[in-house]
């Protein structure tokens, strides 16, 4: 169970006011807030242990190295990685993680006769890198469709996977909230001899995720969406897969040797971590992972699911047919991301009016333009919940929307 008062007290930004009204933060799908202990962990690191990692022998360099390597364990333990020291690569965000995977793995394993399967509901981060690689290599890119309920259309999955080498799909849509059946997709991919890469940007912060139980091969996610700092992301990959991947970014820290005629890359995650890594950020995301683990992802999920159910009820009660919510109505099949349109009011105007009520939602295409085209809307307003949100926040959303509806009546 989530203790609301305790949790809210842990997040300093919730004390913020906008237009003299306490902030109602409903944009966690874009970026979460950070608890004070995460902020403090980083400040403490800078003030006490900062040094560059890996090559120092003095006290603080050892501490920094221990904290940085230890962060792989904290993060790995959150997602059920059995060998975090060999499987957790730190990047700068989900987007870099996916670029790294696509270029390193895809760039060496894919040929012009191969196929890659993604879905229409992917974030641009899991679309554009494939386009760029496709231009170079020329494989076929196949799209899993989305049905009227906002769920993946899987009846032709076997067909799509025939001849495919990789399935890359999001675990939770950042627009629809849809929770995709990753275990099922992983089994299907493996049946066809393909590997599966999961975009976990929205799932890792909000659902219990166990990479072993799901039997997936790689997963990308971002610290800043899981109560951690900006500037760091994660690529988790099974050891066998990571070991076979060539470097992507290159420079210091990822080499065994450099001569004037070539270089030999290092083993393990450091092969993919060229240059000085985000050290303080690793300290921060480790603290965020510990915090999430203490809260328990089951409890986080329960809290957010109940809140989503409450919010959807209140919204439909208030606006009826004027309101269109994209994505599943069944809260067991969706996370706390509510994308909606309200009559003729444009998403941008909705967000502007809500801001005057200190309610923070995001308008736009949410970096998922293929999905928006499919939905036939140029933009939606999106309210998204974090563990620190309450039914009072959902009420504030409804009240703000009444104002918008009135202004544009």
């Amino acid at each position, binding site marked *: 169970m989530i203790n609301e008062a305790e949790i809210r007290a842990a997040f300093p930004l919730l004390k913020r006011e906008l237009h003299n009204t306490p902030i109602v933060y409903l944009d966690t799908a874009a970026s979460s807030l950070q608890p004070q202990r995460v902020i403090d962990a980083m400040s403490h690191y800078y003030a006490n242990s900062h040094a560059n990692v890996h090559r120092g022998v003095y006290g603080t360099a050892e501490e920094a190295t221990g904290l940085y390597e230890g962060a792989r364990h904290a993060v790995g333990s959150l997602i059920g990685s059995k060998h975090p020291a060999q499987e957790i690569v730190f990047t700068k965000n989900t987007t870099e993680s996916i670029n790294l995977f696509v270029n390193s793995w895809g760039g060496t394993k894919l040929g012009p006769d191969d196929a890659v399967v993604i879905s229409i509901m992917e974030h641009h981060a899991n679309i554009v890198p494939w386009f760029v690689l496709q231009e170079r290599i020329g494989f076929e890119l196949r799209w899993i469709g989305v049905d009227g309920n906002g769920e993946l259309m899987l009846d032709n999955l076997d067909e799509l996977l025939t001849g495919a080498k990789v399935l890359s799909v999001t675990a939770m849509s950042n627009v629809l909230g849809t929770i995709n059946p990753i275990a099922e997709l992983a089994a299907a991919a493996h049946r066809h001899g393909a590997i599966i890469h999961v975009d976990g940007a929205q799932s890792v912060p909000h659902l219990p995720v166990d990479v072993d139980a799901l039997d997936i091969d790689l997963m990308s996610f971002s610290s800043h969406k899981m109560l951690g700092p900006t500037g760091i992301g994660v690529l988790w990959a099974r050891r066998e897969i990571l070991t076979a991947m060539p470097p992507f970014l290159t420079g210091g820290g990822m080499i065994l040797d450099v001569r004037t005629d070539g270089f030999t890359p290092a083993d393990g995650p450091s092969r993919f971590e060229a240059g000085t890594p985000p050290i303080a950020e690793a300290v921060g995301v480790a603290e965020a992972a510990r915090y999430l683990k203490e809260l328990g992802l089951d409890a986080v999920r329960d809290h957010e699911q109940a809140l989503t159910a409450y919010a959807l009820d209140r919204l439909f009660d208030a606006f009826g047919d004027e309101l269109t919510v994209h994505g599943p109505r069944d809260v067991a099949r969706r996370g706390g991301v509510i994308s909606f349109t309200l009559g003729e009011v444009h*998403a*941008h105007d909705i967000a502007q009016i809500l801001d005057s009520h200190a309610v923070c939602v995001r308008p736009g295409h949410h970096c998922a333009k293929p999905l928006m085209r499919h939905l036939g809307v140029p933009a939606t307003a999106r309210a998204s919940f974090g563990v620190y949100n309450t039914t009072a926040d959902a009420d504030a959303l409804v009240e703000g929307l009444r104002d918008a509806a009135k202004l544009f009546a």
Partner: protein
Amino acid sequence: MADLEELYREIILDHYRSPRNRGELASPPAHRTEGFNPLCGDEIVVTIDVLDGVLQDIKIAGQGCSISQSSASLMSGAVKGKSIPDVRSTIATFKTLMLSHESHLGDGDAEPEAVDLKSLGELAALQGVVKFPVRIKCATLGWNTLTQALDEAGA
């Protein structure tokens, strides 16, 4: 919330609900240009008919928020039938109004100039946008598209 009322003035809501000069001119002979705001997905399609140094006709299509659509609608009324130099000067005046805030975020080179609000007529209703920096891109979308259309049409 005073600011919000300044943003959503009645005249703006009216132009949003009932946009003027809506549609597209046949092109050719008219010149057609699309404008696009990648951040919010707003689109404006401007078709113009320039003859004898005068903007004979203009039509606006596209979709987007109340600010982008009403601003384009207001613009169409303000420039239609004017000589090209007058059109360009109206654009410049309007952009200066918007820039009075944008210069904070821009390169810092441009000094904000005083704008003669009276000369803007109905357009002055858009001055409330200046207090909402992210919406300036909405308000100027149609205007930038028109500038591009004029340039492309060699007018």
